[in-house]
């Protein structure tokens, strides 16, 4: 089947199978490899992207469901010389080590901050419950997200 999907502001017409996952078209067809796959049960959140403005796990969305949609990936939110505030906060707070969970964590965190009025330590931890990091113990991730939330408030 053919779908049209806008990814990071660019429109693509793609030929996909009914069982193709959104993460597969991002990684395999568009070679946007910043979105990672860390599990096979929708638990780890490494594949989190924004679909029409909502954070979703792209391993759990069929490509067909993204037909006509707008997708933003980690590559679409900022560049090394023009970082998104969340990217900058992750670097400033040393909120990443191996970096594998980081793109998904950043995309989830942006969504969390955008959609929450008041975030404290506990709310950030609950909000990131669907993203697993094995390296950082979450300590600096939580601090990074809180710093962005405070700057917004």
């Amino acid at each position, binding site marked *: 089947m053919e779908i049209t999907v806008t990814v990071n502001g660019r429109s693509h017409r793609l030929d996909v199978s009914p069982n193709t996952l959104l993460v597969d078209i991002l990684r395999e067809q568009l070679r946007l490899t910043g979105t990672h796959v860390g*599990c096979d049960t929708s638990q780890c959140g490494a594949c989190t992207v924004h679909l029409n403005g909502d954070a979703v796990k792209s391993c759990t969305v069929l490509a067909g469901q993204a037909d006509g949609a707008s997708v933003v990936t980690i590559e679409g939110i900022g560049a090394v010389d023009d970082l998104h505030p969340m990217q900058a906060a992750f670097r400033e707070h040393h909120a990443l080590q191996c970096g594998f969970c980081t793109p998904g964590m950043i995309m989830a965190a942006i969504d969390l901050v955008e959609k929450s009025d008041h975030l404290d330590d506990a709310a950030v931890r609950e909000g990131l419950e669907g993203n697993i990091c094995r390296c950082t113990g979450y*300590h600096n991730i939580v601090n990074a997200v809180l710093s962005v939330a405070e700057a917004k408030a």
Partner: protein
Amino acid sequence: MSATGIGAPVRRREDGRFITGAGQYTDDLHVEGQVYAVFLRSPYARARITDIDASHALSGEGVLAVLTGDDMRADGIGDIPCGWLVKQKDGSDMVSAPHPPLAHTFVNYVGEPYALVVAKTQDAARHAAERVHTDFEELQPVIDLATATDSVEIHEGVRHNLAYDWELGDRTATEQALADAAHVVRLDLVNNRLIPNAMEPRAAIGRYDAATGEHTLYTTSQNPHLARLILSAFVGIAPEHKLRVVAPDVGGGFGSKIFVYAEEAAVLWAARRLRCPVKWTAERAESFLADAHGRDHLTHVELGLNEHGRFVALKVQTSANLGAYLSTFASSVPTYLYGTLLAGQYKTPNIYVEVHGVYTNTAPVDAYRGAGRPEATYVVERVVEVAAREIGKDPADLRRMNMIQPGDFPYETPVALTYDTGDYEKSLDRALELIDYAGFSARRIEARQRGCLRGIGMSCYIEACGLAPSQLAIQLGAGVGLYESGEVRMNPTGNVTVFTGTHSHGQGHETTFAQVVSDRLGVPFEDVEVVHGDTGRVEFGLGTYGSRSLAVGGSALVKASDKVIAKARIIAAHMMDVGADDVTFDGGVFSVRDSNRSMTIQEVAFAAYVPSNYPLDLEPGLSEKAFYDPENFTYPAGTHIAEVEIDADTGVVRVVDFVAVDDFGHVINPLIVEGQVHGGVAQGLGQALLEHGRYDDYGQLLTGSYMDYCMPRADDVPQFRVDTTTTPCTHNPLGVKGCGEAGAIGSPAAIMNAVTDALGVRDLTMPATSEKVWRAIRGAKGGIR
């Protein structure tokens, strides 16, 4: 201290690519013409393979081959070796059962690979794998560690399923001291099996160039040179000079990516057979089944104390589950990385340990963050805690009165190590101060009013990092040296390329090592580039594990930098027309004593490559290599204190406060060091409260996904409070000790001491799940305060 020098919290330079999605992990690589492999894995814990019928699979569209263990053996591919030969009590060698990369006759654990399907697409390979019909004759598996030595033989000729029966220390003296002790504490402990779960699943791409005979392996490895050595010398995939191993960005390892795995050998072999690049990426389910697991000990410990509370003897008997085959360093973990650490921070005069290394029909067990040292710390710090409670002494006081004192160093333990330096009381005092130890009873009372049981527990750990020296390790059975190599190359324009044999899988070496070299050479931090992870670019190396990279690899870079400075001094002296002894070096500038003449190291570098005014007897160029072989381990140590609250109705345990005070020697980048502690403590918390790799009686893995294996999430962990004390390592040039594993070593015992304190029970096995804790609350008649 400069903004980028030693001791500065420099923001990591590798982050730029990771936060923008530009990191390049193995699965992100796309090699032109690549095809895809899917492995067929045993569904049984122990079986004989009687037939593999691939005809249906081969008829599928895009399917290129189904390759079996027999095919591999016929091609002369060798077994995967265990890299450390342990001698048994009687002096004989341990028994290492053959470990073919692909099983051919017998399979010995669920998930063991026995064949692979290669197809043009991932989907085609997956579908074809479903259509291979394999007949197995099921055999009785051996799963339970406690009864494994009395069960059927897994491997022919391996009696009692014992890989080894090993000991260390003086048995007679220890048993006599226990018999004479005023008080003996006996405890049976379980160190739960863990599954490492680096967030990046393993992946590998094999590539073969028929025109040149060159093989390339892209893989998720912590130590690409070791992979090349083993794949070449033992597995026989290709000669070493025709095999390049590249480990690009590696998404965590925690030990699990040290080892050489079957899939790495198989994709190289398949690529050569099929004449096209072959790529494999693990699904998480495969990671659970076939990555090497960690821990899994059963231990009986006896601690003897005299009438004053001094430790007089420690006797430890451990069964260590090694799984179905001996993985790369499996044999060393429960022996030389465990038994040697049982002195802990204490002056116990008599220590004896015996370890049975046991085969079972489960996934191989090998080093996982801490590797032997968390197990040793758990034994020592749990039994010491129980001793304090039984003789009615404050746990901090009992530890303090038994600690090795600053004046005792170098301190030779009864279990073969010589600690070079430390100040254990200082870390203990700082941790007690941070947690407000004196105020705990008030906090406990306050918690009780909220229906919560509050407990406090500490752990005073020591670890041995940067395994060394090579000669001793090789005498004790290591198959490789334990030095590290480095090269510091000043380029003609004055910037620096640094090559190191260690390899980061999240530790930030590109930043830390640049800080070290820029500080030493006096060149700007931005002008130093660090290269690692590629046998085609880095001469040799042993990789990153055991908290060794800075202490060993960083020291090699210091040594190489000093060689660069020494040569540059000769060039500078020549150019300034004085003797080398008249030239000083500071902050990147060579100056003539008592004069205003000077030149920068960058100017010297240019002169070294464009040698017009140059010493006749000196080679051009300014690049130096060094191998650094440490004379001893380093000994990071510290105190971790946990406070937990348990909901008395539900049994849910929350770590409400955690203090870690660690002595890592000098710290190069405190930001990175703190991050290492946070991550390690979270893994230790996972072991104590959440994680348990469990098999059923048939050897099926019950915890084979994130639905069943409980990884710590953001809301499972508290804010950590971290501080350091400093006694510099006495024998490496940076005075550093290593910080990568401490968090995972100290924290499990601290948390379990807190949980048992809260519950008023003697012991509880990890993980302290809400169910276990709830049952303990119901069972502890009058025991709950």
